[in-house]
């Protein structure tokens, strides 16, 4: 109990690791395509709700698609604030997942490549879950879960997008 005397005062500053423009430039060799739209309605909305445990806080999403590659910028709340994540998918496998902006006071370790590289090559199982086990980080459980949900959601949306058919 005495140890908790040293609890830090929340700082509340967002850390931007990569802007959306930088992420897209990296995903598509400096020439990102025009975005596409995906509306979250009907069964798709229900599927997203099942993955996240709540509705996604927007009615439509944009994604970028070139050949078999798609890029997604999604947000999910870790504990109190949204984490912005960029996800690159090749065919139906995650090529790269990167935290673009982290706003929580604790749990920023999820932005390190040591953690995010675990998502590389992850795909969806028949059950709709990730086929790769993601090791947690002590003290960042909610952020880890948020990123895992977003990876699952991106793979599910990719399968429904034009990109999955190589458009």
């Amino acid at each position, binding site marked *: *109990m*005495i140890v*908790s*005397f*040293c*609890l830090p*005062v*929340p700082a509340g500053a967002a850390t931007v690791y990569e*802007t*959306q*423009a930088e992420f897209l430039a990296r995903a598509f060799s400096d020439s990102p395509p*025009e*975005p596409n*739209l995906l509306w979250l309605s009907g069964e798709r909305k229900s599927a997203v709700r099942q993955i996240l445990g709540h509705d996604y*806080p*927007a*009615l*439509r*999403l*944009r994604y970028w698609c070139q050949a078999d590659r798609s890029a997604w910028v999604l947000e999910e709340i870790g*504990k*109190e604030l949204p984490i912005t994540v960029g996800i690159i998918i090749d065919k139906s496998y995650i090529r790269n997942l990167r935290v673009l902006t982290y706003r929580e006071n604790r749990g920023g370790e999820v932005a390190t490549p040591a953690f995010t590289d675990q998502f590389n090559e992850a795909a969806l199982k028949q059950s709709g879950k990730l086929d790769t086990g993601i090791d947690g980080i002590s003290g960042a459980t909610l952020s880890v879960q948020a990123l895992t949900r977003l990876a699952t959601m991106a793979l599910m949306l990719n399968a429904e997008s034009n990109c999955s058919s190589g458009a």
Partner: protein
Amino acid sequence: MRRLHRTVGVTAAAFVIFMVVSGLAINHSNGLGLDRRHVSQPFLLDWYGLDGPETFQSYAAGDDWLSFAGSQLFLNDKPVATVSNGTGAVFNGEMLIAAGSDELLLLDPQGQLIERLPWGPAGAEKIDSLGLSDNGGVVVASGGQSWFADQDVLSWERSNEAGLSPLWATPASAPENLQQAIARQYRGSGPSLERFLLDLHSGRIFGPIGILIYDLLALAIAFLALSGLILWARGRRNGKQR
């Protein structure tokens, strides 16, 4: 030693009980929902310095009002999203559009967020103002240039043609009762109960002097542990001698 131990013990007892109870609550704040409930008592909001919004601007959007109160966007008196440095809001007949200095928010007429768009066409500076073109398209003024969106607000084109004269959003004075309702809502979303308990638990709620007093009380508890051990050892030794 025994008298000092007793005096310090009695003084620190209430503090220890408080630390135990608040520490337990903090450890289980998620399960108890303390991170989702907010402090709303006026004197506590005053204590935290939570006054009304520093900046307040309203825009008439169709029959409704979109207002930027600090970083909170309100549709009439309903908080609908956060946006920093509000620069304008319009209604194009289908969507409500609100602009911050570096993002655009598209909302349906009920205020549900359709999409949050980071502002960043190549070569664009921050958003100065927002408007509508003759055909209801979204227009952004940025760095002295006008940017026109396509129908889905997917892509932007820069244009300085003289014939295009967008209708720019201009702030207006919302009804007084609406302003008051927004100020109440804004002030009401104070710190979470978890944050309040953390500040209470650490003494930070009382400022630097609070932390100092808590430090002294922590030392007093350490003293109690030590003096208790010494008294126990003495008692044991005296018992053996008898």
